[in-house]
């Protein structure tokens, strides 16, 4: 093969491998991460129903904090982030843009539902890049000048600082906070669509679903996955928009002081069976 170092030369020479890696990275690790990330975030809501954490005052904030603490306790976290997340996402996004630019949407003329999914898959990819970049820059890399109110997200006060980011400051929801929340709503919703639809198309890409019936059946399953993830995503955004910053901060401070004093207090409080379980 002749030596070409142009960009299209590289893409053409590794065409099949790159296409399949693009599909694969969309599911694993990116899609798997998306699911676990949305589950974690929604703990600000489902955590409220965890009576074992009631002693912290705000069970939702406590569960969310413990989830964050667990993640931060992982060894080689930065390496996991770089090689397990950031590089795969950058790879998928960069190729995604190349692939998206190779098509010419024609929804006006062919206004079929499937064709709209095709176009939305590409739009959601573009918006997804903007959203993921903003999300990482503000919360992970500390570009607080992009956050109204300039809140610095803190891993020790995970829920309360995140609530301030999304509400636009420490004193409840502001207009600028609403704008940020709206961007989160649009960005996350589009990415959930992107993943659910990608899950559906990947089964065609790899040849798992062949007959129209099988494609339809798998489509229903992907719709279920998408709807569930959408519910988690919206619950999390709602949860942080209505979170009371002060009581969340109290709960986080108690966790930061370590488990023992909290457990003593729980024992003082009379020790329901739930709390006794926590004490073990």
């Amino acid at each position, binding site marked *: 093969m002749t030596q070409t170092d142009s960009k299209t030369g590289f893409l053409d020479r590794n065409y099949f491998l790159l296409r399949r890696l693009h599909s694969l990275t969309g599911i694993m690790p990116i899609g798997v991460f998306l699911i676990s990330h949305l589950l974690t975030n929604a703990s600000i809501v489902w955590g409220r129903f965890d009576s074992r954490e009631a002693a912290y005052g705000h069970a939702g904030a406590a569960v969310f904090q413990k989830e964050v603490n667990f993640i931060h306790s992982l060894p080689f976290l930065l390496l996991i982030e770089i090689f397990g997340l950031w590089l795969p996402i950058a790879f998928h996004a960069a190729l995604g843009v190349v692939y998206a630019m190779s098509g010419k949407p024609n929804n006006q003329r062919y206004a079929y539902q499937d064709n709209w999914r095709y176009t939305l898959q590409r739009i959601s990819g573009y918006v997804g890049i903007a959203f993921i970049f903003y999300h990482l820059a503000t919360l992970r890399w500390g570009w607080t000048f992009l956050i109204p109110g300039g809140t610095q997200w803190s891993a020790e006060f995970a829920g309360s600082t995140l609530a301030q980011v999304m509400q636009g400051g420490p004193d409840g929801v502001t207009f600028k906070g609403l704008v940020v929340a709206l961007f989160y709503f649009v960005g996350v919703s589009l990415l959930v669509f992107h993943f659910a639809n990608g899950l559906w198309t990947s089964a065609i890409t790899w040849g798992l679903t062949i*007959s129209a019936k099988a494609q339809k059946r798998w489509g229903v399953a992907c719709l279920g996955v998408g709807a569930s993830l959408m519910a988690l995503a919206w619950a999390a955004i709602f949860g942080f928009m209505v979170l009371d910053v002060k009581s969340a901060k109290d709960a986080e401070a108690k966790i930061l002081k370590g488990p023992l004093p909290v457990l003593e207090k729980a024992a003082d409080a009379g020790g329901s069976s739930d709390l006794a379980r926590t004490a073990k």
Partner: protein
Amino acid sequence: MITSLTNAPAGPHAKELAQRAANRRNAKVGRTVMVKVQRCDGPGKASRWETFKVTTERGMNVISALQQIAGNPVTTDGKKTTPVVWNSGCLEEVCGACTMVINGKVRQSCSCLLDDYAPNEGDTITLEPMSKFPIIRDLWVDRERLFHNLRRVKAWVPIDGTYNLGPGPREHPKDQEIRYKMSECMSCGCCLEACPQFNLEADESKWDTSFIGAHAINQARLFNMHATGKELAMERLDALMGPGGVSDCGNAQNCVKVCPKSIPLTESIAAMGRAVTLASFTKFFRS
């Protein structure tokens, strides 16, 4: 390996078909219909619109409307012009030559009844050439790239030679049945015109690396299922794994909805997706 074929609805939407049938029932013979045509005097020349008046006859199709216009090529502004150029062959929707874009959607013009599309006095029907192929003149386009792409996947059975090869292997009737539907392709180009991933490529040197199209993917499947055609199976899969191959499909699934022969193109695309997946494993562990 490739066994599935369902009778799931393909082809134009049922709603569209019902609307056309209703139009046909209501249309009156002898009404005036405006035929709006996108015209172009030759390759590289600018396009323009011209509208003609046509008096309908019973069962009139787009071709007979164009013939009436050719008899008296005067636009609605009273301007004398040249007859509109179009391509056709069979006049019974089996050759694909007359394919054009009618009221915004691609289809064969010979099977397109004016009653379906312009049922009322004064209604307009719009004709455009396909946009994914170079224009030769007016509504006539050059579908050479479509045939080029069939050659990329060697869409034939290799039996030419210097001596008699004897009878071919027996075919299973079930396979024949599946293949029959796929074999109805008439190379019309509808699936390519409607595909957002298949776009006009004027530079012929890029034809081998730009998207091959649903029709060729379907033909590769057809001939890979054929007992003798199988001999070239790996070469066809190589073509589909290369640049512009099956992975270029973005699953918009327009092709299957506009295919006049209701060929299950999206099933063929998935089937060849599976075939190249398996082929890539085979290659990885063998070479």
